[in-house]
């Protein structure tokens, strides 16, 4: 256990230094990701204003608060591994990783955590700038703001594990990008990305309730905005846990056969 901890700590330090060194890449990445929520914010505020102030239970102010916190949740739950996996396999990077006595996901996950920790330096000022520009009125509820932190972490872990399982499919097909694009497209509409779920048509909400996506994105937002009762929040955490168990099992079983299947390329 002790050696594991040392390993993670060292890995974390190395990754963090890597992110600090190439910070410009991270900054442009962050700025590029800001465009999307601002566009939705403007579109939905315009719609709310036209329809007399409220759409699907969201007021103009609610939309502003939603999409500003949206940017934070998005940055904290973003997962890049599926995009890289294909080329990593093709370039034989796993040759060395498979020789190590530790599962590659640990190194990748620690690196991802490091990017999120370092990312705070830039996300927080960006959030403040958005607040100053759009001037929303926040009405946070004490307990739900506290609950938001672990729920956001759960959402991150869930999304990371599920994305990693998807990334592993690159061991079978070189078309994992297409698969991932389909996944993103579905997620885009039923996770709360394009609009709060309650604004979407009823059938979309139905579909969303059967999929894992809302628990990785919309749920933490709902909690932070104080739109859920304690009972509903607990029920949501239950869903998060259930999906996490499912994703972890999927990942583990995929990994076992993927590792057996792997044949070295390059090196």
């Amino acid at each position, binding site marked *: 256990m002790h050696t594991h901890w040392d390993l993670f700590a060292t890995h974390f330090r190395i990754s963090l230094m890597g992110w600090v060194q190439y910070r*410009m*890449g991270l*900054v*442009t*990445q962050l*700025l*590029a*990701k800001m*465009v*999307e929520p*601002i*566009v939705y914010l*403007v*579109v939905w505020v*315009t*719609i709310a204003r*036209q*329809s007399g102030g409220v*759409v*699907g239970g969201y007021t103009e102010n609610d939309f502003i608060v939603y999409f500003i916190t949206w940017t934070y949740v998005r940055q904290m739950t973003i997962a890049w591994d599926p995009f890289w996996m294909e080329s990593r396999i093709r370039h034989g990077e796993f040759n060395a990783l498979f020789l190590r006595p530790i599962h590659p996901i640990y190194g990748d996950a620690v690196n991802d955590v490091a990017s999120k920790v370092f990312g705070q330096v830039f996300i927080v000022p960006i959030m403040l700038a958005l607040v100053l*520009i759009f001037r929303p009125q926040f009405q946070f509820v004490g307990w739900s703001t506290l609950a938001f932190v672990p729920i956001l972490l759960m959402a991150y872990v869930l999304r990371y594990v599920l994305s990693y399982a998807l990334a592993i499919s690159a061991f079978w097909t070189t*078309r994992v990008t*297409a698969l991932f*694009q*389909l996944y993103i*497209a579905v997620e*885009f*509409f039923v996770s709360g990305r*394009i*609009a709060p779920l309650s*604004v*979407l*048509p009823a059938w979309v909400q139905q579909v969303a309730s059967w999929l894992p996506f809302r628990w990785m994105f919309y749920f933490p937002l709902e909690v932070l905005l104080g739109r859920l009762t304690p009972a509903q929040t607990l029920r949501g955490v239950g869903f998060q846990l259930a999906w996490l168990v499912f994703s972890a099992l999927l990942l583990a079983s995929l990994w076992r056969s993927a590792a057996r299947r792997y044949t070295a390329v390059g090196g």
Partner: protein
Amino acid sequence: MESLKLLRKLLQINALNELQYRANFFMQVFKSLLELAFGLVGLSIVFYHTEHLAGWAQAELLAVLGVYMVIAGITRVVIQPNMMQLMRDVHRGDLDFKLVKPVDAQLLVSTWEIELWKLLEVLLGAGVLAFAMYQLGGLVSAGQALGFGLMLLCGGLIVYSFWLLITSTAFWFVQIWGLLQLFDSVYQAGRWPVTIYPTWMRLVLTFMVPVAFAVTIPAQALTGRLNWPTLLLTLALTGFFLTASRWFWKVGLRRYAGASA
């Protein structure tokens, strides 16, 4: 005349190259359809709540989406691949090989790579546009169509000039990939008419990233909202950006020392 012949040859080479990888075509079909679905579902969610957005009716917003897809498609077919290649050439010193050829270097670096399969995006965009026109009831006069064609051409040229301006900074800086990505992502804002955005954003989307000129103004021309001052301003700015980007490219080129030699 020489340039036209050169363009035809480059097109042939690129076509032969792409035909080798036919499976990529089906990937592109899949991607483009997904992209189309993205746009249409996005619009339909908005229409689920409202008939119009900041004075733009449904069919008009559909026309904006069509123009957006056409311009984005053209960017993917010819502008982006060439500018990415230019960036790599500058860093690796491979630009030498293009500079020694007896044609205008800007023409060569701007037309070297053509991703033919991505023309599909342009076609789908044109389809959306045609459908929007049909919904608008064929109210387009010859003058409007002419204005639209002209504004679309200007939009394409302005987008090209911006890409060239940004890519030319590769002569000074190493890390410009992120900058290009940033520029590309801001362009997404063009899915909606820029008139819906607050003033500061409208300024950014007009002069810092030319979304307004690339998408909104051609769509305005098509829906009969274009006035003479805007048209003349667009023409003047197109001339300005073309000249400015060519000048900047030449300044950068003078700085280029060739890394491979």
